[in-house]
């Protein structure tokens, strides 16, 4: 399928899987109408209201009911609408879904997919723009996915749906409209394997999700200045492709991690720490300052990562 948007790519992926397996269903607010972003468009008509369940505004129960339904053998896709609302369902996610397999000695199969569209988009301010994906990489018991391309977003959905583990999918809101080609028969993504987006040897750059196109833009700008960047799109944070990052950092001796999220104690810290524990490397991170996300465009722009900030951090790193 050539040139589809990321939103449409995920729609086609879920469609493919739901046609294959009648145990797969979707629950969340406004999904009957096609979801807030059209990612379930036409599903009600094809699958009916038993499999496309528009729910009350009851996030705790959307999450917890998904878990319960998985425990009896169905395969729910839990739609959180916007990431920030998962804060209303954290007991169900953190204390129940992430722990149930372990706590019960392996008896439970919490085969849920939790979709949480995240990130800065359209000046949505502090309660609708957060990026806390790093939190979940610190939480044992869940798979954490942060795709950045239509092909990867589609493959992520297929892998997430087929997984018996809880898979958290952070749909990048700012990239819903990004276009690319996807396969007609979408194969599952392999969790924990980075995508090598650019090859180079002056500097290793690591990114994911909505920051990834900015990293590519920065890498291209640097290439134009004669600096060749080895750029990795992590795609999943738990598990994450430490081997690929280490191999690259060993080669270049310089590591830059860029993410939309707050820098302090973000997942970039894990990457830098993991590498620095093993390789003598010069490293730096580019992310959001420790500030909530403001509404006004110039305020937002002052804080958020862009390609220019990545370029300047990269040049700073190369100068050391």
């Amino acid at each position, binding site marked *: 399928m050539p040139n589809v948007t990321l939103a449409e790519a995920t729609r086609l992926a879920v469609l493919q899987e739901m046609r294959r397996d009648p145990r797969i269903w979707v629950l969340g*607010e*406004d999904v*009957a*109408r096609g979801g807030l972003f059209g990612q379930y468009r036409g599903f009600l008509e094809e699958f009916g209201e038993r499999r496309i369940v*528009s*729910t*009350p*505004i*009851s*996030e*705790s129960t959307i999450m917890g009911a998904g878990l319960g339904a998985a425990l009896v053998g169905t395969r729910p896709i839990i739609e959180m609408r916007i990431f*920030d*609302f998962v*804060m*209303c369902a954290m007991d169900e996610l953190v204390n129940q879904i992430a722990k149930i397999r372990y706590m019960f000695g392996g008896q439970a199969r919490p085969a849920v997919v939790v979709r949480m569209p995240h990130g800065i988009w*359209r*000046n*949505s*301010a*502090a*309660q*609708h723009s957060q990026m806390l994906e790093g939190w979940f990489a610190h939480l044992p018991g869940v798979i954490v996915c942060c795709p950045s391309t239509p092909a990867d977003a589609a493959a992520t959905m297929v892998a997430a749906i087929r997984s018996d583990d809880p898979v958290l999918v952070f749909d990048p809101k700012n990239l819903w409209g990004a276009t690319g080609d996807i396969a007609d028969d979408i194969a599952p993504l392999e969790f924990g394997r980075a995508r090598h987006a650019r090859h180079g040897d002056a500097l290793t750059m690591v990114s994911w999700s909505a920051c990834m196109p900015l990293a590519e833009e920065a890498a291209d700008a640097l290439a134009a200045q004669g600096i060749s960047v080895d750029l990795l799109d992590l795609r999943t944070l738990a598990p994450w492709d430490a081997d690929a990052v280490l191999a690259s950092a060993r080669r270049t001796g310089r590591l830059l991690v860029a993410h939309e999220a707050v820098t302090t104690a973000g997942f970039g810290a894990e990457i830098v720490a993991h590498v620095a524990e093993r390789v003598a490397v010069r490293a730096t991170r580019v992310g959001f*300052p*420790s*500030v*909530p996300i*403001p*509404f*006004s*465009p*110039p*305020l*937002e*722009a*002052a*804080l958020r990562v862009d390609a220019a900030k990545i370029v300047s951090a990269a040049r700073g790193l190369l100068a050391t």
Partner: protein
Amino acid sequence: MATNSARLLALLGMMQRIRAFEETAMAGHAAGEVPGPLHPSIGQEAVAAGVCANLRIDDRLTSNHRGHGHALAKGADAARMMLELYGRAGGSCGGKGGSMHIADFSVGMLGANGVVSGGIPIAVGAAQGLQMLGSDAIVCCMFGDGAINRGPFLEGLNWAALYRLPVLFVCEDNGVAAFTATASVTAGAGVAARAESLGVPATSVDGNDAAAVDAATAALVGAVRAGSGPRLLHARTYRLTGHTSTDAAGWRAADEVAAARDNDPITRLEAVLRAEGVAQATLDALRADALREMAALRATAHVAPWPDAATAFADVIGENA
């Protein structure tokens, strides 16, 4: 003019200001001047106006995502609100909040909220604090019919009843939550029955009848302020627009929308006032004044300076920064 007419005229004036504010802001949004989405309350103005007419300035208010009307009726400055919607310096929140996070503590408006039912726990806590401080101020907590399916509704009402807190809960029931009819996701007999089961006496009212909302609220506020504990007002109304400024709401049945237009609270209140002998010109002037006021605010906001980028780093924390 009879006292009653004067009061109703004041209500109408506020309703016209709310509508004009939102129509103007929507036009600004359509013209690409206002960043981010707006949640208009057009068609619901009688609830905001009728409820807040019974609040003192030191009473507190918590609101939801659809809060322009609540803020204006509580006395928030329209100019600063418009600047906030435009993300400009001088906005109610310095441009940090935008439409969904309008707050004006100087008039007791403790904030809109981007999380459905997010204002409920805050409201009961504010009431508990006021009670502790020996104040006779009360708290008004506004939320939609979609909010009654989230846990904080149960927790907050139980809490308020338990500690006999001075809270007036107002459920603004427009029949819809975003794009879903709330009847299709709500079991049982509805918000009033739920409130009663939690020990909170409830009153239902036609929320498009400003005089009825005003009268019902007056009685409830009296009881709440007198220390009788919390009350809930269930006001049935209709959202004449889509969910947000980018939603044309084309999915609604045409006859439903047409019927609702006939039931427009502004039209209805005008009819009442005409029957009481108020001249049409007086009524027309209220709308014209309101539109003029808001157009001027729009023009100002559109050319107002942006906040200094350095302010982006301020107000994260206070003295521990």
